């Protein structure tokens, strides 16, 4: 599974990449929105982990979703209030994780996102609160 990790904090991107590589993911990193979009344009990624500051992250997320490349987007944000989370999902992100997170949880979510989609197990709108 190919993953692109984008975080403006280089150490953070490197650490996530190292951790994912230990678990046999193919990982590339980028540190800003432009770099991320360049790499995404080359294609071939299954999951995008987006840890940019809110304004940049939102812009990248919007473009990725608009491009319709089928890349699943996992947003990493500091301080997720219910409102932030809703805003992130309304941008079309597939999942959301609040920093700081347990690495095992990140791995689990990336794995889940990378699975081929199975509509029957996805929550229908009637099950959402």
């Amino acid at each position: 599974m190919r993953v692109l990790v984008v975080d403006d904090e280089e150490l953070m991107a490197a650490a996530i990449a190292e951790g994912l590589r230990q678990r046999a993911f193919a990982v590339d990193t980028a540190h800003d929105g432009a770099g991320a979009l360049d790499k995404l344009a080359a294609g071939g990624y299954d999951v995008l982990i987006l840890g940019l500051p809110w304004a940049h992250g939102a812009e990248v997320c919007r473009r990725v979703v608009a491009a319709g490349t089928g890349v699943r987007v996992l947003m990493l944000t500091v301080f997720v209030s219910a409102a932030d989370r809703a805003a992130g999902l309304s941008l079309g992100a597939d999942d959301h994780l609040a920093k700081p997170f347990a690495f095992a949880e990140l791995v689990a979510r990336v794995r889940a996102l990378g699975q081929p989609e199975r509509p029957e197990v996805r929550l229908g709108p009637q099950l959402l609160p």
Partner: protein
Amino acid sequence: MTGSWRGSLRVRHTLLFGLMFLLAGSVVLGGVMILVHNTMDYSLSVVFARKLEKYSPSTEPWVANVVSADEVSKQVIMASMRDNLLVKGGLTLLAVCVAATAGVWWLSGRLLRPLNMITETAHRIAGRTLHRRIELAGPPSEVKSLADSFDSMLDRLDEAFAGQGRFIANAAHELKTPIALNRTLLDVAMARPDSSPQVLRLGENLLAVNQRHERLIDSLLTLARADEAVTDRRPVDLAQLAGHALDVAAKAAAQQRVQVQAQLEEAPVVGDPTLLEQLIRNLVDNAVRYNHAHGFVRVQTLAEPRQAELIVTNTGALISPAEVPVLFEPFRRLTDRVGSARGSGLGLSIVRAVAQAHGGDALAIPRPDGGLSVRVILPRGDAPRA
């Protein structure tokens, strides 16, 4: 009109004016009566004297009779004059006095209306909405300048509060970024296959420290949010939240060998579910943490006609009533409670801040056998939708 009868400026104003008017009127009436009396006395004497000036009392003996008859007529005339003046003048004075008092009542009402507006606004602002202003319309006047300075004071206060909230939120955000980085670096480093046992131990310790920082910053954020006005208001049942908090705390309670008792009755309120959950969780966590083995934690929720209550009682160290206010201050822990460093020192400050942000309050009463009973009172909301 606001305020009690005795405390009303309008009533005092009107009574004082009415009294002064009555007094002044009476003085004038008295003066008029004396003046009329003297003038009449003099005029009648002159008239009667002139009538008899051609006759000498020594030669004509009937003059003395006429003089005494004149004296009697004068007394009658003057008495009738005095009575007339007293009754009619008094009635007129009374009528004018009543009319003037009514006028003053109306006028002072008009004059004080802007002041009442200011008072009402101040009352509303005391309920934590710094966004309201008096915005008194009308030409410049003493009251308008009071209202305007009040408004500009509110502007600055509002700004200061907003600035403080922003500062805390930004600071917490900036502090969380390196903590998130630490956490990931440690998680990844500890998962390396070549990590030595020493590194693993160090990593675990650092993770624990990092988690303390995380909790502290989360608490700060909660406190900062609670101090702002509650924006997200939904019907919430305290009993449900308490049940959830007890589930979460069950493991810690079992580890500490603390018995958990729950008496949860439906207690509907309207508020921010996240903040209220934090409130209950803080109380339950505290009650478990600052307890002794074989002690108990009792969580009660109940609804009164106008308010919903949450009472969390625990056994533990003796606390003197004088120490209770300290418990609610941020970053203050009682000396014998410092034993555990896991708390952020913000627990009860958050509880009170959240309760007050919802129009309620939190009170703590030490138990005579040690431990504490914390009572949170919130305005009752409608029953939550099923």
